[in-house]
């Protein structure tokens, strides 16, 4: 009966069944059902053995990897080191890939197959994160998919992996159907078939759950939370995610779209002054945002990663609203009456972004900043301008995909350097040589303790000392399911059939 | 036409004692418009014998068409027949049910409209329009109906009727269309045809064709014809009797020759006088002064009185129809004598 089939109402859609086509989230959470990786992550984004049972650094440039024995692909062929070689070679070379895995493999120098189940990999430079990067690559069967185009993967005879589910069919815009892989090496799912229905409108997804046409939905909007929580036939599962929502403060010298408190143009950028940035941070009531707007589906943030994640600096205290101190700081910086600014945000990019943007406007305004406008634009029209640095204060988010803080810290805060490809996400052009030094060192360090110490320091500089941006909260990932189902919520916001169990 | 059905025109009609086919008495038709009540027909009395051609003349808006439509019960809201009686072969049509009227329409009483461009449905082929008319009253099969259609088209002198049947109205000339309309009217050999200005929109040459056709028809089949027009000359050539209408009333009626030669009502005389042929070339025509009376506010008494040279105090009362000669009635207190007319000519 019903227990055999699981219908998931998903808010996002994959672009392709080819797991190498793009590393965008919706694609990955689809691929994870069908394909395995060398290293998997658990619900807390900690690495756990996947197709690799062990890995060790023989020296700074060499890694030895042992593969799991006795694993078979969906078509019955055995899994061997050759498939790994094939997959690692294929992943960076998928044509027209909008977001390829090339970056993860950029330091890979060569692969040596020792035997069917052992590999030795060499890197071009010392790279502590190398093994984690390798871990993100999905392993395909050379026999089934060699020479196949991305679009060929819509055929179940090409989309062959070793994962817990077999691919059956995909109707773009509508649904994706999987059947259980009964020979799976890991835990076998409770569900014989899994149907993922793509329902991108939040309210429609909730409606589907409430009308019983799906069993579980993801990306539950905080708007619906109180109601769903109160319903007896529906359970809500929630976990703090690694997605940081922050307010970027544009520190470019040429950004002069500010006004004085009475509306006249202000010829300078007050955000270049750390005291001003600090003052703004003191005006934001993060608890207000998480409790009132997000209905608890968020955790106030102090830095790039939440507590419990590698690199989280305990030393950074939570920022509480303190208007008096904010005003004092502003006065100190030469803006006793505050200044005027427009707040920008995206619409429908992440949970309640437009509501949050408005609330930020309100909080700043109530704190004495003249908020000239609050502008919310669809992401397509928003992000190019944000990247070009055209907004003074704007809402953005960063989803940590690796289980530690280095990637985020260097992307967001390293001084922008196009040549060396550093500070790519540093849209506000924050720049502090001291910070750069610390983070550069962290990225080269193999010793975990030392690395973590450096990351703490980097976080302290960026968040505590410089207020390079205003961290707001970590989004919570929320699922809702009909009673009788248990969902193991994942911090990486992946909606997986493997995480769903029939309650016992 | 299905076998066994007698063409109506050839049956002896006299179901009534007086031998009248149509007897209209005191017919009143009104339109309740926003501006008020328009009395389009205000107590018309009129009779028609089988085979007779009656001309109904009068200026625009005098109620000729409305009289015609009233007979067929085709007055659409906001209009209605508010009084009087229409006896057709002794049968009362005022207040008759829909079914009765529908059976009568097209079979016993047919009508031809003024504008041949508008009477045929532009989006239906000629054959459809004729065949449906045949089948509205007989149980003929499609092919029988088509046969009948060909027959009548030939009868009204349409060349190559087979091809015409497949045409749409716009592919035919005005004269041809009017002949098709006449053919439809003839389908069931009605005993009465109401022709509402059927030639006004047509050229002289085509007018002649149509008048010829209708004349022959009445003569041959004994169909009575009510010919509505404002063209006195046409009436003169074809009708037996004529009724002159003014502001919803028949002001004069009688044999066509007598009425046109020596009109007794001042209005009829005005009409006759204003025809160019009755005037000297190049000189001003004699015209009726003033403007037609508004049907919304008819003057008390004789409606023509404000425009009449002969009007007196007495004309403020409604004149009754008086007999002024053999078979001639005039609604006037001061009917003109033949001599007066001759004097003026």
């Amino acid at each position, binding site marked *: 009966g019903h227990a055999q089939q699981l219908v998931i109402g998903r808010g996002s859609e994959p672009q392709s069944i080819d797991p190498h086509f793009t590393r965008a989230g919706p694609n990955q959470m689809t691929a994870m059902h069908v394909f395995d990786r060398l290293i998997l992550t658990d619900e807390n984004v900690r690495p756990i053995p996947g197709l690799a049972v062990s890995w060790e650094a023989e020296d700074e440039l060499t890694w030895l990897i042992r593969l799991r024995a006795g694993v078979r692909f969906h078509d019955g062929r055995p899994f061997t080191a050759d498939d790994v070689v094939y997959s690692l070679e294929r992943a960076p070379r998928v044509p027209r890939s909008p977001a390829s895995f090339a970056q993860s493999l950029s330091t890979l120098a060569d692969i040596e197959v020792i035997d069917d189940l052992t590999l030795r990999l060499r890197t071009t430079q010392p790279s502590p994160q190398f093994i984690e990067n390798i871990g993100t690559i999905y392993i395909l069967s050379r026999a089934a998919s060699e020479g196949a185009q991305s679009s060929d993967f819509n055929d179940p005879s090409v989309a062959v992996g070793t994962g817990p589910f077999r691919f059956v069919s995909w109707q773009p815009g509508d649904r994706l159907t999987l059947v259980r892989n009964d020979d799976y090496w890991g835990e076998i799912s409770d569900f014989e078939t899994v149907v993922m229905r793509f329902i991108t409108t*939040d*309210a429609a997804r*909730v*409606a589907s759950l*409430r009308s019983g046409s799906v069993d579980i939905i993801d990306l539950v*909007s905080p*708007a*619906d*939370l*109180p*109601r769903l929580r109160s319903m007896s036939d529906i359970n809500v599962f929630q976990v703090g995610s690694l997605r940081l929502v922050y307010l970027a403060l544009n520190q470019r010298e040429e950004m002069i779209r500010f006004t004085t408190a009475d509306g006249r143009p202000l010829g300078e950028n007050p955000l270049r002054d750390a005291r001003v940035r600090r003052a703004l941070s003191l005006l934001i*009531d993060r608890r*207000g945002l998480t409790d*009132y*707007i997000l209905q608890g589906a968020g955790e106030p943030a102090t830095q790039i990663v939440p507590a419990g994640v590698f690199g989280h600096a305990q030393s950074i205290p939570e920022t509480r609203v303190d208007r008096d101190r904010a005003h004092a700081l502003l006065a100190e910086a030469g803006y006793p009456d505050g200044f005027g600014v427009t707040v920008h945000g995206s*619409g*429908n990019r992440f949970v309640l972004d*437009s*509501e949050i*943007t*408005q*609330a930020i*406007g*309100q*909080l*700043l*305004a*109530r704190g004495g900043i003249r*908020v000239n*406008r*609050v*502008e*919310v*634009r*669809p992401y*397509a*029209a928003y992000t*190019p301008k944000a990247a070009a640095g055209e907004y003074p204060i704007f809402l953005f988010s960063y989803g940590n995909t690796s289980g530690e803080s280095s990637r985020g810290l260097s992307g967001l805060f390293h001084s922008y350097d196009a040549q060396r490809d550093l500070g790519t996400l540093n849209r506000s052009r924050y720049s502090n040589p001291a910070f750069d030094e610390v983070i550069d060192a962290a990225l080269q360090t193999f010793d975990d303790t030392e690395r973590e110490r450096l990351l703490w320091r980097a976080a302290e500089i960026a968040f505590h000392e410089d207020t390079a941006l205003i961290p707001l909260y970590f989004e919570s990932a929320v699922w809702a399911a009909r009673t009788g189902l248990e969902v193991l919520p994942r911090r990486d916001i992946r909606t997986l059939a493997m995480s769903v169990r029939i309650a016992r | 036409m299905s076998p066994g059905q007698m063409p109506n025109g050839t049956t002896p009609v006299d179901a009534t004692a007086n031998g009248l086919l149509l007897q209209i008495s005191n017919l009143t038709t009104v*339109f309740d*418009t*926003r*501006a*008020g009540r*328009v009395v389009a027909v205000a107590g018309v009395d009129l009779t028609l014998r089988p085979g007779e051609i009656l001309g109904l003349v009068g200026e*625009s*808006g005098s109620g000729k*068409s409305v009289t015609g439509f009233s007979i067929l019960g085709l007055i659409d809201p*906001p209009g209605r027949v508010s009084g009087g009686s229409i006896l057709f072969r002794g049968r009362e049509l005022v207040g008759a049910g829909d079914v009765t009227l529908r059976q009568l329409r097209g079979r016993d009483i047919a009508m031809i409209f003024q504008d041949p461009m508008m009477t045929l449905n532009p989006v239906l082929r000629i054959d459809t329009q004729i065949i449906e008319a045949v089948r509205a009253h007989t149980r003929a099969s499609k092919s029988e109906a088509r046969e009948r259609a060909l027959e009548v088209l030939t009868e009204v002198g349409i060349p190559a009727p087979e091809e015409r049947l497949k045409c749409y109205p716009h592919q035919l000339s005005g004269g041809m269309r009017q002949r098709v309309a006449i053919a439809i009217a003839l389908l069931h050999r009605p005993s009465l045809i109401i022709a509402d200005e059927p030639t006004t929109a047509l050229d002289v040459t085509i007018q002649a064709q149509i008048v010829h056709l209708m004349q022959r028809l009445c003569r041959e089949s004994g169909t009575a014809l009510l010919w509505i027009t404002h063209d006195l000359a046409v009436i003169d050539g074809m009708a037996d009797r004529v009724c002159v209408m003014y502001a919803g009333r028949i002001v004069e009626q009688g044999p066509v020759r007598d009425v046109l030669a020596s009109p007794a009502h001042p209005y009829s005389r005005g009409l006759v006088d204003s025809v160019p042929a009755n005037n000297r070339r190049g000189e001003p025509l004699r015209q009726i002064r003033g403007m*037609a009376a*508004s*049907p*919304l*506010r008819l003057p008390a008494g004789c409606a023509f009185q404000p425009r009449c040279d002969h009007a007196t105090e007495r004309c403020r009362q409604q004149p009754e129809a008086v007999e002024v000669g053999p078979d001639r009635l005039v609604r006037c207190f001061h009917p003109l004598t033949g001599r007066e007319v001759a004097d003026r000519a």
Partner: protein
Amino acid sequence: MAAQGDHGSPVLADQEQPQWRQQWQQFAESRRAWLALWVIVILLLAALFAPVIAPQNPYDLTQIDLFDGRLPPGSVGESGFIYVLGSDVQGRDMLSAMLYGLRNSLFVGVLSAVFAVGIGVCLGLIAAYAGGWIDALIMRIVDFMLGFPTILVALVLLAVLGQGVGKVILALVIVQWAYFARAVRGIALVERRKEYVEAAMCLNLGSARILFHHILPNCMPPVIVIGTMQIASAISLEATLSFLGLGLPITEPSLGLLIANGFNYLMAGLYWISVFPGLLLLVAIFSLNVVGDRLRDVLNPRLQR
């Protein structure tokens, strides 16, 4: 246009009253239309005086309070403010937001309809009058516009020009003028063939004068009618754009934007955030349509009694 036979016996009584008086009387005969007109007048006044009658200025970020968010109708806020129709997520008083929203919706609707009608009418007239390649060109542009997705136009404008009431109006005008051009061309083609145009040509009055003084006024009744309905559909379209995040600035909501915002809370039972503005929008568009319908009947000589 008054009751009359085809070849013209006028009903003289009508002469005493100017045409507009009659039409007005006829308009007022429909109780529904009369009521709708009143509703529109009231709504217009409410929109016009929104700053005066609204208990709160929903644009003023310092007046709204996050912590008064999601209050059901009739609640009293922390500061003692009474939210008659409840508050939205930001703590905005719904009643005030609706009054201002109505103002924005009507402003956008009326203005975009006026411009779209204006442009459409001019191009349609020119197409009909000039004929030939000018006509063909204009009509192909019309075809082009009709097949062009509104969302794309709106998004491009948003990206290029930024956000704002003016830009939304521009987007609505761009996607809607084509309908009018086509409609007016059809009407003008008929008018152009009438003899009064020939008479004007005979009097040597010049093309521009004939076009704008003679043909245009006679195309107006249908245009006025489509125009009224256009206001309604522009309001509705703006609401749709807002729903897609392409409408007005989020802090200066129209009714459509309010509904779109509340849409997310409908399932959560916070019905007032979208149902009240929805009802107000419904009433406004409904009344406009009723009036437009009635106007069409009154101005259509074919339907006159």
